[in-house]
């Protein structure tokens, strides 16, 4: 592979790394933080499933992102991903929760402003609406799932050891599903901007077509995995009870609700099925893993009347509001520098 390609993709790979470091905690944080599952097991499952999700089901959400801004110049794609990554890095440094999806959307809008490309308001509305619907959907899913599980437990009345084992297995499966959904939905944030300028040719491996986009997403998936292995442990160890006190069952419900919501917003198959049956389709949009988790946590917290740390939640929402704005402004500035100081084509 040409070294220049790696350099151009490096900002996306860095974004992937930070996504792996931060968002793996949404999937396995509670289980690893409370030592229900070993970090090694969680990291292995998470890495494999993220890559599979990205390569197999990552295309759906990236189309939506592509229609928001068609960045055909490699330099432009590099700068957009870099400014999104810098936004994520800065906000994390300031202690504000951050959504990679919001950062990349903000950066794309920044590129649109810089290149005087009109932002498709219909697509933008669809994306922003999804950001609002995602935590609400997760909230409702968590309440329904919790009630269902509580009902099953009350009916079957399993012993403590049996319940413990089922919870542990459940957390592993939910984590695997969550990782797959994370890869499928969030790979668009990491590599979506590079799709129009993907520097790869289609290959056939063992008779299976391996498109340029798939290769791009594989690289992104690997970057996420590296993030999971190298940095997510410390994030996982600090995640868990920041909003509500977590029990293993609550953790399972939260992870599962988050995974279902992410899957809904990235499954082309499900979208086609709904369309074929004349039902309204769910938009395939990259959503925030953190928003899905927080929606589920608040859902369970309110259902069980647990004390919710509203101050923490306020900080989280503040972060969500500022991320796209900071990313858009940051991207505009970065593009200005890259084009005028480094003389690299960004449009």
């Amino acid at each position, binding site marked *: 592979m040409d070294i220049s390609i790696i350099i151009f993709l490096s900002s996306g790979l860095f974004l992937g790394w930070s996504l792996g470091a931060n968002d793996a905690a949404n999937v396995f944080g509670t289980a690893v933080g409370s030592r229900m599952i070993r970090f090694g097991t969680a990291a292995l499952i998470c890495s494999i499933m993220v890559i599979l999700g990205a390569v197999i089901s990552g295309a759906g959400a990236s189309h939506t992102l592509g229609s928001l801004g068609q960045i055909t110049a490699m330099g432009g794609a590099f700068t957009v991903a870099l400014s999104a990554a810098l936004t994520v890095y800065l906000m994390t440094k300031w202690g504000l929760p951050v959504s990679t999806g919001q950062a990349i959307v903000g950066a794309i809008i920044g590129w649109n402003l810089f290149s005087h490309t009109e932002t498709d308001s219909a697509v933008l509305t669809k994306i922003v609406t999804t950001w609002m619907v995602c935590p609400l959907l997760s909230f409702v899913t968590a309440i329904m799932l919790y009630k269902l599980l509580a009902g099953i437990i009350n009916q079957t*009345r399993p*012993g403590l050891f049996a319940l*413990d084992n089922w919870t542990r*297995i459940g957390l592993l499966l939910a984590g695997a599903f969550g990782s797959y959904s994370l890869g499928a939905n969030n790979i668009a944030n990491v590599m979506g901007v590079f799709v129009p300028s993907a520097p790869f040719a289609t290959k056939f491996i063992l008779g299976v077509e391996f498109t340029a986009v798939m290769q791009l997403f594989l690289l992104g998936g690997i970057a996420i995995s590296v993030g999971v292995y190298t940095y997510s442990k410390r994030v996982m160890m600090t995640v868990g009870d920041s909003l509500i006190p977590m*029990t*293993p069952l609550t953790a399972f419900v939260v992870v599962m609700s988050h995974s279902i919501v992410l899957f809904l917003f990235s499954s082309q198959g499900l979208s086609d099925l709904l369309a074929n049956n004349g039902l309204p389709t769910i938009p395939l949009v990259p959503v925030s893993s953190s928003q899905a988790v927080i929606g589920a946590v608040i859902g369970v917290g309110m259902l069980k009347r647990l004390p919710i740390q509203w101050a923490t939640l306020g900080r989280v929402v503040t972060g969500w509001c500022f991320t796209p704005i900071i990313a858009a402004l940051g991207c505009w500035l970065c593009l200005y520098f890259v084009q005028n100081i480094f003389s690299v084509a960004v449009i």
Partner: protein
Amino acid sequence: MWFTKAQSLFSQSKTTESHIFQFFDCVTAAHHQFMQLWQIYLTQGAQCADFDQTLASLSQIESKADDLQRQIDARLYGGTLIPDLRADVALLIDQADKLINLQETIGIHLKVEQPTVPSEVHPSLLAQIQIVGDTLDHTVLCAKSFLTDLQRVQEYHQKVILFESDANSMCIKAKTILFSSDLELTHKVQLRYFFDRIDAVANLAEDISDRISIFTLKRLQ
């Protein structure tokens, strides 16, 4: 591979669970020996083979319970249970072990001190030991329910509270009878300590039951 891992997780849990149940059987058996020890003492005294044999049995049960506790701890901390639950179960076993230790200690003191027990105190003393036994039995049932059926814990916990209250009343009644007897004061004081030690077994059983109740609330939240 995953299936094998899950299977091993379940079989490990089964073994730990069966060890815990064996341990609670030791608690029940220990009290049975303790009751017998007093019956022998009140009828034949401490200088007979039956007494020594019963005390030896009680010590054997205590040793077996200690072994089981070590095995359970090793399995628990080897990762059978998730950490939060692991700590609760380990604490429960540790406290229940103290029930056996207390009764064995009383048995040894009985052998060493051989207090004089006036005949008018016999019925209330045996009744006290009987009620302490009921408290203990229901604490064991409460503990077993914590492992098998959380919904029944409160029911047994309530019974433990009632029996413990009866045990306290019986202890006071026995001591009242004791101090109104013609026995010398030194003997009365010596025997009073035995009543208090027996009562302490019921108190500890109630403390354990209280803890189980809290563990359960935590899980039913």
